[in-house]
């Protein structure tokens, strides 16, 4: 019987626990997370774990304990730089980098991200640029994100930008690929198929 005294927030975390588990099991090789032996090889191999509120090993432990909401609101998953050390060293064959990606996606989907984090803003801006142009003009990406999140830092980059410009390393106009509409047509077809439930076990949520 479900306890009626459970606080709404706890209940929500509880419900999300199942959603999160299903989502992680759904990615290729995702169900390997069940085989984690908590050895900590991932945390010891991670170049950024020293700065994380929760280390990669702790993330898996928190996941099992249903405390993922707390983890997603910390700085942790967005400090993953995709170096894949944990993935190639895990004795249980867990593709932890792929799981980090899934946790980033779930955090964005459910609004569970650290308030001051820049990385989710950058990723969203990146997606917008890809969907619009098909390629990413990296300098306009960086400037766009900094202006939004840390205008002072953007200002500080002006001298460096001028140096790059003088060396022909700052393209000012983005290039739009010819196949951009066909690319978006494919994406649209995929979303439609997901929405209409053609691909069992895969939700359209994060794809739109």
């Amino acid at each position, binding site marked *: 019987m479900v306890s009626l005294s459970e606080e709404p927030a706890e209940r929500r975390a509880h419900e999300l626990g199942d959603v999160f588990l299903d989502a992680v099991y759904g990615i290729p090789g995702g169900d390997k997370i069940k085989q984690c032996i908590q050895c900590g090889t991932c945390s010891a191999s991670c170049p*950024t774990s020293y700065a994380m509120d929760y280390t990669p090993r702790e993330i898996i432990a928190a996941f099992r304990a249903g405390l993922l909401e707390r983890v997603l609101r910390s700085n942790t998953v967005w400090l993953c730089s*995709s170096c894949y050390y944990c*993935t190639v060293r895990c004795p249980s064959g867990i593709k932890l980098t792929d799981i980090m990606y899934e946790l980033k996606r779930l955090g964005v989907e459910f609004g569970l991200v650290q308030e001051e984090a820049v990385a989710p803003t*950058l990723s*969203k801006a990146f997606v917008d640029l*890809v969907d619009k142009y098909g390629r990413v003009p990296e300098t306009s990406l960086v400037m766009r994100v900094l202006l939004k999140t840390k205008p002072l830092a953007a200002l500080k980059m002006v001298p*460096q930008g001028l140096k790059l410009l003088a060396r022909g390393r700052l393209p000012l106009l983005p290039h739009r690929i010819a196949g951009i509409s066909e690319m978006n047509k494919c994406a649209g077809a995929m979303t439609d198929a997901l929405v209409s439930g053609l691909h069992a076990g895969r939700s359209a949520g994060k794809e739109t």
Partner: protein
Amino acid sequence: MKLQPRAGFSYYPGCSLEGMNRAYDKSARLVSKELGIDLAELDDWNCCGASAYMSIRELRAHLLSARNLALAEREKKDLAVVCPACFTNLTKTNQYMGEDPKLRRIVGSALKAANLQYLGTVRVRHLLDVIVNDIGQSDVKAKVTRPLSGLKVAPYYGCQFTRPLGEYDDKEFPMMLDTLLTWLGAEPVSFPLKAKCCGGILMTTNQSVALTLVRSLLDCATQNGAECIATICPLCHMSLEAYQGDVNKEFSTNFKVPMFYFTQLIGLAFGFGRKELGIDQELVSSKTVLEKRLVVT
């Protein structure tokens, strides 16, 4: 699946090589031509998604790579890639679509909307692998007209060249670039951090962490006697070159370590000029080092 013999490669430069890292593109095309590697730029390629797209959407990130793979398959060529992040994304989608029938079905049916299909016949190769393993020692050495004698280079691979899916070198201690450098007459120094992370995109999102990582790389390289660093990754190159000044400011250090794309060092050894190789676009001057080692032009 049996692989057909291929004539040349479809070349995938990636977004970084259209911007900050044009010199990598320029030098890669130049030395490939010199080595008889036929690189034809993949027509109308799209972004691989890097790590950012995958952080928001999974299936559509695979779709991005699948379109590139489908375009390459239509050309009946393998893909030659220079950016390790592009390499990893393209390889990953290629492998996951082969192994996971559900992913293959979802992405395959989406491609149909643009009359595209991907059967899984394309191999994704990094240009370093092509040069070392397909061209090989004797053909590379035969082209060397100006050996980089005495040039002490830290060979920096970064992460995604061998991790997670590169199968042609050790995942934690690769040697392919070391080997190539010796063919050019240079002296690769011992560089224990050669496959450690530079922080990548964290330079924009969590700068203090990224600067710490870059500092330890520069420390390790110089303490082992390196006069310059060779990279195979545009993002590593940017972190170590464009942010070297920020490292110096943050940690009161005084690094002045020139950075080369590995293709620029090949080009120098082949006798090409600095300008032809885009070395004139550098932010940390390599003039002193090159003059000292008599490879300047």
